């Protein structure tokens, strides 16, 4: 028998007395239930922002990027700031799903699905900016090395901007297949629970016919491991290459060899902050506090604290190296950054990114949910300003003092940025309502080692929470030779029959698990009221199963009798 031992000092990753079936039900609940009012309000706001962003993008493309606040000195501003900000946010998802998988960190399993979703959605936002910055996005395919009408003029493989094209598209597509492969067993779970035919069809399509054979699982685990091994250097390469967009130039403030590691650390820093922002809300709204625990948030806060300190180190190193280099242009770039007209942006960056995460040294603060949420927002703001400071403050005072200038964004700059935030939340909100937001198959595999009840059983003794081994085995005949009439009458005799003249039929669809089709089936058997359903016991459940071809065992699993008892009142 497999050992599920885990050291008692490790806190449980799944809180409460959960069984495998509980995990299924709780992960499926947000998908199977109905959206509440708050969801629609937030979705409406996000959609409005998204549409506003589309309007601004269309205006930009129709008129030209002159509608942005760019000028002859500042050729890159909000567009590239937003691009780097969004790509950076994406990094946390891959870090959680790939790097933590390689390090065998089990706490990854509660959060990896949403973190990866966040990665994909934010890389989509990031990708928008270089494309619209082209000015003529319909000629965007020129960045691809394909035969063209200019003889054989190929894309320039020496350019970091082209490396970016390869890095971002590889990153987006590999993240997508990694995410989707992990989703297959969970989509299959939703498919096998789906009652309504439309949902069943959709989840059958999405799950690619996942069956869960032993061989499939063996390959699944190997594929996940290899993809993690590939995604780890990939994620490091992506932000390294993004930083080379700056580092390979000869502009003081950009031409810095420390950029690759510094950008990667910053990306992880901002990404974890965004994961915290999203999951602190989601665990509450979707009732997933048993799977995304306080401990998960604490561990993410520790990552934020460490990467924040690395970023702080990089800021100081940059200043030191600028002074130590003896190059006056370099020295001026950094002096101007901290004390010039953009001092406020620099100060904001320093406070948000270097000072604020240091509070997480306190155990009390890093385990406070509300406080973690506030810091996560602060870090997101700080990291946006970091990119703004690097890009704009290095450009606005160039070698020629007559061209020194300032940047002021137009409503289009702001609109596109707000639009991408809206687009991101539109995607994430739709995801939260239609996808299994917890990798439930993986979480089930750690239930026995890290589940609260199993740990208590091992450490302190008590009842074994594992399902009891049955004393009697149920035999199911394949050729169902069931006397339907006899079973119907015996079922109705114990439930009581329905008299259409004196009683009114209840809406049986209110019972979770019963859809329109099942209601019709129940009606043909003669079950119309909650009163009848509430009388069901194991004997009646079995009889009911024998009368129906599909939905075997569902009535008992979803506890129809208990639900009907409540509905009756």
């Amino acid at each position, binding site marked *: 028998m497999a050992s599920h031992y885990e050291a008692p000092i490790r806190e449980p990753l799944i809180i409460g007395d959960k069984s495998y079936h509980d995990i299924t039900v709780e992960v499926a609940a947000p998908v199977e239930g109905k959206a509440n009012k708050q969801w629609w309000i937030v979705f409406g706001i996000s959609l409005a922002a998204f549409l506003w962003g589309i309007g601004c993008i269309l205006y930009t493309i129709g008129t030209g990027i002159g509608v942005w606040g760019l000028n002859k000195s500042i050729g890159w501003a909000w567009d590239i700031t937003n691009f780097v900000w969004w790509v950076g946010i994406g990094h946390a998802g891959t870090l959680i799903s790939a790097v933590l998988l390689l390090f065998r960190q089990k706490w990854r399993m509660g959060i990896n699905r949403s973190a990866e979703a966040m990665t994909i959605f934010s890389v989509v936002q990031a990708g928008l900016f270089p494309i619209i910055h082209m000015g003529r996005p319909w000629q965007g395919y020129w960045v691809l090395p394909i035969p063209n009408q200019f003889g054989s003029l190929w894309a320039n493989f020496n350019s970091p901007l082209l490396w970016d094209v390869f890095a971002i598209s590889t990153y987006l597509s590999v993240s997508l297949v990694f995410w989707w492969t992990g989703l297959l067993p969970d989509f299959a779970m939703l498919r096998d629970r789906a009652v309504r035919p439309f949902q069943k069809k959709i989840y059958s399509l999405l799950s690619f016919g996942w*069956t869960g054979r032993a*061989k499939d699982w063996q390959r699944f685990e190997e594929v996940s491991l290899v993809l993690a091994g590939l995604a780890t250097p990939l994620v490091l390469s992506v932000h390294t290459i993004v930083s080379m967009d700056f580092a390979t130039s000869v502009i003081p403030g950009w031409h810095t060899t420390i950029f690759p590691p510094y950008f990667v650390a910053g990306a992880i820093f901002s990404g974890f902050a965004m994961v915290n922002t999203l999951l602190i809300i989601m665990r509450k709204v979707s009732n997933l506090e048993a799977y995304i625990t306080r401990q998960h948030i604490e561990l993410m806060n520790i990552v934020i604290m460490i990467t924040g300190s690395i970023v702080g180190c990089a800021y100081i190193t940059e200043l030191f190296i600028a002074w130590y280099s003896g190059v006056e242009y370099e020295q001026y770039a950094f002096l101007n950054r901290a004390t010039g007209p953009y001092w406020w942006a620099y100060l904001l960056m320093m406070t948000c990114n270097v000072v604020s995460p240091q509070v997480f040294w306190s155990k009390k603060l890093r385990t406070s949910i509300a406080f973690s949420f506030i810091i996560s927002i602060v870090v997101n703001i700080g990291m946006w300003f970091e990119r703004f400071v690097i890009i704009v403050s290095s450009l606005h005072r160039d070698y020629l003092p007559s061209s020194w200038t300032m940047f002021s964004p137009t409503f289009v700059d702001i609109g596109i940025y707000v639009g991408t935030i809206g687009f991101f939340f539109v995607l994430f909100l739709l995801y939260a309502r239609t996808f299994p937001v917890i990798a439930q198959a993986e979480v089930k595999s750690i239930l026995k080692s890290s589940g609260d009840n199993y740990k208590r059983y091992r450490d302190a003794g008590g009842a074994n929470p594992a399902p009891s081994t049955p004393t009697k085995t149920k035999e199911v005949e394949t050729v169902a030779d069931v006397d339907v009439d006899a079973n119907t009458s015996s079922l109705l005799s114990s439930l009581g029959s329905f008299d259409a003249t004196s009683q009114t039929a209840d809406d049986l669809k209110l019972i979770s698990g019963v859809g329109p089709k099942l209601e019709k089936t129940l009606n043909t058997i003669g079950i119309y009221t909650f009163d009848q359903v509430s009388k069901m016991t194991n004997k009646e459940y079995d009889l009911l199963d024998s009368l129906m071809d599909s939905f075997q065992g569902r009535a008992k699993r979803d506890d129809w009798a208990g639900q009907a008892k409540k509905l009756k009142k």
Partner: protein
Amino acid sequence: MSSKVIQAMYNDDDVLMSAVKETKSAHHHIEEVYTPFPVHGLDKAMGLAPTRIAITAFMYGLCGLSFAIWMTNYMMIQDWPQDIGGKPSFAWIYNMPAFVPIMFEMTVFFAAHLMVITFYMRSRLWPFKEAENPDPRTTDDMFVMEVAVEGNEKELTSFLKKTGAVEIKVTEKH
């Protein structure tokens, strides 16, 4: 030949594991095991051969690397050599450092995508594919072991009952 199988359903992974081991040592042929999550050690207990999918990924990666080398050499050195920023394209090896990011990305791109496609093909996973799990509960909390019937069916059924099965079902497999 009609192939009759018995599907024994279990409600716990540890019970399933010991059942698989018992069935194996009693020399019954386990056709398939369906589980809702990866049960570690199950493949070894069933006697499944280790998967070679990681090896294919390595080979796909080599293909990607070779393709990137060919592509950069053909496009930047052979077909239209240019002097970009005072760095002329005389020989691939001199320009190689600038091509490292491309070589790396192509390696990862080929290895990851072709491996996943191989996995989907080998495990028969694609859109519109019908699921083949014998019971919808096998994606929830139930574990099904499918054992081929050879010889005495009654004996096998009672043997499987003793392994702790919750439910036993005899079916014709097509």
